[in-house]
Structure formats: C-alpha cells, structure tokens
C-alpha cells in the first residue's frame, strides 16, 4: 500500500475506532434525528390533510423518502466543519501545521471513518424502521444498480464535506463560524431534499437547484433508491456529482491557501 494511502487509511481507521468509542454521541444524535423526523411527520400530516399527493408523493411516500434520506445522512451528513472551526478559533490548528499531513485530508479521512460507524448503526435502525413501515419497499429496491447507488452516496459524502468545510474555513476571517455553519445548515436542509423532496418545488426552481450542489447530497441519491426511473439517469447524476466535487475541491484549497496567509497564533 503506498505510504500516502496508508497514512490516511490509518487516520480513517482511528476515526472508525473513535466512532465506536463514542457511541453515546451517536445515540444522542438519534434524539436529534427523531425530533426532525417527528416535526416533519407532523408538518406533512398537516399538508396532506388537504391534499392527497404532491408530484408523485403521498404522505406515506414522503415519510418513506424521509427514512431513506436518514440512512443516507448517517453517511453523508458531516460534522467536520465544527472541528475545523474550533481548530482555527482556538489555535489548535497550529499543531497540525507542523505535522507531515494535509490538514484537510486528515479531517476528511477521520470523518469518513466516523461516518462508516454511524452508517452501520443508521442502516440497522432506519432499515428496521422502513421494514416495519413499508416492508414491500425491499421487494422493489433496484438491487442491480446497488454499486452505482453506493458510489453516488460516497460522492454525496464528499460534496457535503467540501461544502461545509468551505463554510468552516470562513473562520479565518470571522470571530467564530459556528452560527454561520448553523445558518448554512438550515439553508442546505431546505435545498438538499433533507426537509422535503425537491419535487415539491415549482419545476423552474427544481431546474435552478439542479445547477447547485445541494440536491446531489441527499435528494438524488434518495431518488435513485426510491424512484430509480425518475432520477434523471444514474450516470448523469454521477457525472454531475464528480464535476461538483472537482469544483468544490478547487474552492476549498484556494480558501485554505488564502486563509493560511491570514492565520495567526501565538503561544503554541
């Protein structure tokens, strides 16, 4: 195994072990997720009280969509931005600068390891929830396309990570980027399909959104699983995801380079 891959593999493995070690963190996270699912369930009960369906979603489909999104989220929803933000704010960032590693790659590899653990738990919990809620769902899964769907979810992890990291890197210029991260999270939750399927938006708006990274994080991967026929072509989505990853990669590296010139720390 080349030394570089071996190094980041070790970091990811440590992240995996940390994920296992801090199981409490995961289960507290479940409370947060449950709150979100519950709020959404009540919201959509109110919406579907006066209307049977929106697009090709009725209440039951919307809730199924939600559960599938939760599974994708356990892998693609990242918290790396808080680490980056804290490191820059407290000056701990300096400790990484003297090490023979890329700071961003370190954070991403570590988060990947943790998210593998989270997704193992997530598939178990939400998979059973789906089994209880809509058992027939498993009969209609596009099993033959599973590797491509898995690839799309991996891409969604990188889109999400790069996007939120770019927000966290604003810490170079802000007092603290914590609030900004939450605001961004709120924006992302609306436009990524985390709160409602993008199909609920007017068609023109859906078209505009398709040129942003947001729907490629949760909505399109979820559509590939639930409605493979309407997902707009798996290869088309995978291609778009790759382009987004490339653009985001360039942006965060440029931000990092500029931010490094601004960064100051003493006493470390």
């Amino acid at each position: 195994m080349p030394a570089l891959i071996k190094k980041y593999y070790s970091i990811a493995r440590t992240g995996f072990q940390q994920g296992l070690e801090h199981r409490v963190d995961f289960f507290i996270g479940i409370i947060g997720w449950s709150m979100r699912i519950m709020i959404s369930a009540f919201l959509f009960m109110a919406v579907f009280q006066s209307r049977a369906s929106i697009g090709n979603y009725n209440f039951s489909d919307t809730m199924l969509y939600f559960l599938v999104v939760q599974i994708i989220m356990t892998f693609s929803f990242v918290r790396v931005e808080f680490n980056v933000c804290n490191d820059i704010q407290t000056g701990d960032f300096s400790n990484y600068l003297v090490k023979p590693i890329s700071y961003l790659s370190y954070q991403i590899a570590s988060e990947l390891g943790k998210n593998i653990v989270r997704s193992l738990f997530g598939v178990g919990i939400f998979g059973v929830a789906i089994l209880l809620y809509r058992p027939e769902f498993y009969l209609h899964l596009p099993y033959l396309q599973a590797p491509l769907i898995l690839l799309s979810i991996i891409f969604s992890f990188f889109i999400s990570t790069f996007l939120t990291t770019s927000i966290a890197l604003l810490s170079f210029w802000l007092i603290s980027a914590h609030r900004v991260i939450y605001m961004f999270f709120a924006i992302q939750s609306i436009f990524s399909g985390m709160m409602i399927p993008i199909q609920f938006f007017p068609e023109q708006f859906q078209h505009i959104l398709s040129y942003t990274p947001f729907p490629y994080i949760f909505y399109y991967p979820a559509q590939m699983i639930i409605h493979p026929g309407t997902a707009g072509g798996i290869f088309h989505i995978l291609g778009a995801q790759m382009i987004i990853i490339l653009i985001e990669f360039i942006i965060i590296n440029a931000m990092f380079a500029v931010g490094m010139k601004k960064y100051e720390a003493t006493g470390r």
Partner: protein
Amino acid sequence: MIHDLKVFFTLIAFNIKVTLAYRASLVISLILNILWVVSFIIFIEVIFQNVVTLGGVSKGETLLIMAFYYLFTNISDIFYRDSFEQFGEKMRTGYIDMWLTKPASSRMLMFMSNMRFDYITAIAVTVALFAYAFRTLNSTPDIHLLLFGIGISLIAHVIFFSVLSMLATLNFWLEKTDTLNMVAWQLTQVGRYPRAIYTSWARIVFTYVLPLAILANLPAEVALKIATTESIIVFFAITITLYIVSFLFWKKGLTRYSSAG
C-alpha cells in the same frame, strides 16, 4: 442582583469591542442571514402553493410566527447561543475553572461570555420579514399588541435559556459528545411552525413539558389578538418552573465537576 447586572453590561461592552475588531463578521452574518430567511420563505411559499392553511393557520399567520421565530433566534444568537455551543468543549478542557472562581453568577458567566453583536444586522432582515408577514395578512399591525408580543418573545428566552442550560448541564455526566449542540438546534425547529400542526400528545409535550412550540407561536398569537389569558398565565408559570428546575439541575451538575491542573 445589581452586581450581576453590572457584570452583564461589562460583558456586553467587552463583546461589542470584539465585534468591532472583526468587521468582516458583520457582513458575512448579514449575507447568510438574508439567505437563511429567504430560503425559509421559499419553503413556506412551496408549502402554501399546495395548501390553503397549515393545520388551520393561514400563510400570513405562519409568516408572522416565522418572523417571531427569527426575532427569537436573533436575540439568542447575539446573547447566548455561542457560549452554550462552546460549553462542552470548555468543560472538557478545564476552561470553566476560571469562571467558577469569579464573584458572579456562574451560569451567566458560562453562558453569556461570548456574545455575538455581529448578528445584530440580522434584526434588520427580521424586521423586513415582519413587514412581509403583515403585508400577506393584509392588515396594519396594532402597535401595542405587537410590542406586547415582542415582550412575550423576550420573556420566552428564559424558557429557551433554561432548556439549553439543562442540555449543557448534561455534559457533566456525558464523557464526550459533540451532538448535544445539534440536538439543541433541532429543538428550536419545533417552534418554527404553527403549533396547530402538533396534535394529541405532541401538542401537550411541546406546550407544557418542553414548551418550545410556544416560543414563537404565543408572541404571534398575542400580536394577532388570538392569545387567551389562560395561555399567557400558563406561559408565565412554565417560565418560572423551568428556570427553577434548570438552576437546581445546574447546581447538581456542578457538584459532579472536577478538574486538575
């Protein structure tokens, strides 16, 4: 009490100076706040494109609830949210020791030390949202009722502060968790929608046990003159109860805290 107030105003003065040192924060906060509010307006517009009312609440009323929700968020963002979010990490690294030895309320020092006056610009966005809500309602706001609603909204911070304080106090028992902040954020989402959407047990829980549904709803109901006297009395009773419970829980948590070096 007077001493605590003096400390509070000193913290404000200090944090204003910090804000002035980071002027870029003001601009970025304003831009992101506009995007945040606009995103949620789009979300509400999408919902009301498909339905006439949400649990019997009209679009204008929903927007007014949302305006009070953002006003609430603006104030909490400015005065205490950041301190709560950083508390877990500060506790684990022993930073809170120095606060505990100071001659002032430990909760105030812990949870109000990092004020963010760069978020003050967000209030301008919220004022615009209020204007949009009243325009959608097609009515002129009764200034007295609106001020009363804003007053209730300010008192509601005692509820939210108490809930956040209890969540933060959990850090004394949990070894390491970064997720509590995310849970706190999710909790605020309960108050963003009309409380009429919560039925049966959820309505009881989010009104009386974890009264987050009333944070923005009650001020909006007051401003719209649809709040009942009973609901306002219950609100004050819940506020006082939660404050006492959270204070006792904090004291209990402190007895578990130990640090070295």
